[in-house]
């Protein structure tokens, strides 16, 4: 049950499109910056398979230039330790 947060950087001038695309993806919440070309993305997926699916969808977004991980939490890893 991973929760991650990222900084999503849009390709030039595509912040609005990126926000619209991310908003349609399941398990995603976004917080766009009011004054900078950056969007905070928080993902909360129920299992690894869904997480993998989501990752694939993110990779396919034309409006997304880069995604940097800011925070990661994974229940499964916790139990394994």
């Amino acid at each position, binding site marked *: 049950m991973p*929760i991650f947060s990222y*900084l999503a950087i849009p390709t030039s001038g595509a912040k609005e499109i990126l926000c619209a695309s991310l908003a349609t993806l399941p398990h995603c919440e976004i917080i766009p910056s009011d004054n900078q070309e950056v969007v905070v993305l928080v993902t909360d997926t129920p299992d690894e398979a869904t997480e993998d699916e989501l990752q694939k969808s993110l990779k396919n977004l034309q409006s997304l230039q880069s995604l940097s991980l800011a*925070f990661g939490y994974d229940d499964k890893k916790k139990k394994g330790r």
Partner: protein
Amino acid sequence: MKLNRRRFLKYAAASSAVATAGAIFPGASFGSWQNLSNNSGLISWQKAPCRFCGTGCGVLVGVSDGRAVAVKGDPNCSVNKGLCCMKGYHSVQMLYGKDRITKAKVRKDGEMVEVPIQEALDLIADKLQKTKDKHGKDSVAIYGSGQWTIPDGYVASKLFKGCLGTNNVEANARLCMASAVTGFMTSFGIDEPMGCYEDMDHANVFITWGNNMAEMHPVLYSRMLANRKRRTNVTIIDFATRSTRTSQAADKSILFRPQTDLAVANAICYEIIKNDWVNWNFVNEHVSFHKGKTNIGYGTEDHFAFKDKAEGISFEDFKLFLEDYTPEKVEKISGVSAKDIKYMAALYGDPSLKVTSFWCMGMNQHTRGTWINNLVYNIHLLVGKISTPGNSPFSLTGQPSACGTVREVGTLTHKLPHGVVMNEHHREMAAEIWDVPVANIDPKPTYHTVEMFRALDRGDIKFIWIQVTNPMVTMPNLKRYRDGALKDDRFVVVSDVYPTPTTDVADVILPAALWVEQEGMFGNSERRTQHFAEIVKPPGDAMSDTWQIIEVAKRLGFEKQFPWTQDDYIGKIWEEYRKFHAGPKHEMASYEVLKKRSGVQWPFVDGKETRWRFNAKHDPACTNGKDFDFYGKKDHKAWIWARPYEPAAESPDSEYNFWLNTGRVIEHWHTGSMTRRIPVLHNAVPSSYVELNPEDAAELGVVNGEMVKIISRRGEITIPAQIKGRGIPPRGMVFVPFFDESYLINEVTLDAFCPISKQPDYKKCAVRLEKA
């Protein structure tokens, strides 16, 4: 419950990302983000200083089910005002690496075997006592860290200096800020910066001297950038030996040849005098002029000894000394154009501009580290730009408590919590507070760090206890010191949280509590003491380094000096320790005040923090009736020093034709033993590399990722090349980060040091390269 918990985790995730964005895009705002922190207490948040760098950001650690799950910047902490860098945000994950050391281990028949921690402590006490009895008090030593908490360092000093009677107490901060200390002592007679981070909100010009702040002090750097964005009249100059992320964001990047910062600083002073930009009122009232010895050596031989001798000189003598440093002459030595030297001098000289200079390892890890610290103070003193908001020569520190534990507690061979072992009154004070006979405290310092490990190699030291540091990665000329530690009749105790090359040479390994698994205090770069509580339990048998030392002290018969219980020891130690600093020059806040606040700056007098020392408007210790009082010196003046340019200990020649420079990257903390266990940070920079200038790489015939052999007179390593990465060295220089134990760059470095501070120079030695 579960839903709420996840909601809070998502909140922590969002807060982490929002603040990371703030660090990368200064001033970024996220109006749609709801602040949920006041909702249900399923995650409880408690304050602490960040575990990593000397910036000393305040953080809030989120705990759920007894486990630290998240970190956010502490909005109440004036250092970072809610921001953190990526190391800070991910820091809780360092607590939970799967190979965490949780049990004590003892070497039996060559194998490390798990034992109950009490058995390991018995063995340490027994071995320490027997070694001392057989070989004398100076055959035992403790080597700690600027990541020691203040109580850790305090009990170490009390046990070794006060009870066992040896000055064999050193800390890795000798490797990172000893030159800053001797710089302060020689220029001002008292340690630590006169200014504070608030200087950043007032300065018009920032000059970073060999200091890649964008990676090493990222939150401060983003505060600087935010100031530039907010105010129109802010300029940032990066003065360095290689291009870095700091250079990229600066308004101007000026590169100088290694070691020639000495000549450039003198040329700036020359220009200031030539153009009559001297602040004569300030200089006449508050400054005196001095010179010391020259051709002072490099310390590469065992038992090297040096003592400087100050001689008063006149302003005219100083002016004459600077005749050798005209911008045109210095251009030839330094590679910095006379025009750029004059430009920097004009910024310092313009009375309408407030100037802050920042530096850290570039100036401190320098065989003339004390001198270059003096020279930057010279510049600020000549123009009177010091101790006032925005006018600040600011020596940043690397580690979270290099100031708090090493400089203030005095965990160096010559130091005591107040003053030095050589001073009879300081010994008497320590003996009284420690309740030991004054004769116990030896008036002679023994070994500084490099010489301590040389003594271990020679066999003069037989027992060494290493806590919270990883010298088998960080010592320069490493092979000698590793071989020394492995010799048959040496006994090495290592307290740590993860296996490292240093635990590899240990005879006993003690599991240590890490960061908020214990109560403690750190002291950051701006004289700020920061308390943290035990927020989560340490795993297995792990215990605080402080308590490990107390356990051994009690076994050695020093119950009277270490009477505390595990319930109350930190508060009691703090109240004992702060007696050393009573008085307006260094008064520390009480334990109760520290517990409540997100850090308190000393001197803390009558409930008030002192932000600008030596300035009568701000500093209650000023007593001379003037606007400034440099009370550290007997003449109540700051000292300007005539210090010449002298070359590095080893420079490129026809055989070894490259400079080797070493350092850090933003993702990793020092030797990486913690950050390499944090997946996000490890994946960002999984291994070390050598940065090459693209033209040198082409000449050598290597492309990105290909292996390069770096060879010096001491050793060699083979490491992947990085070309046009985040840093670009000039032609003739390579740079290697030291965080990766798979590529031990210190096999190659040289153990030359500043003869005054005894701090080694990790930034300059000669190597040659081969395509591997």
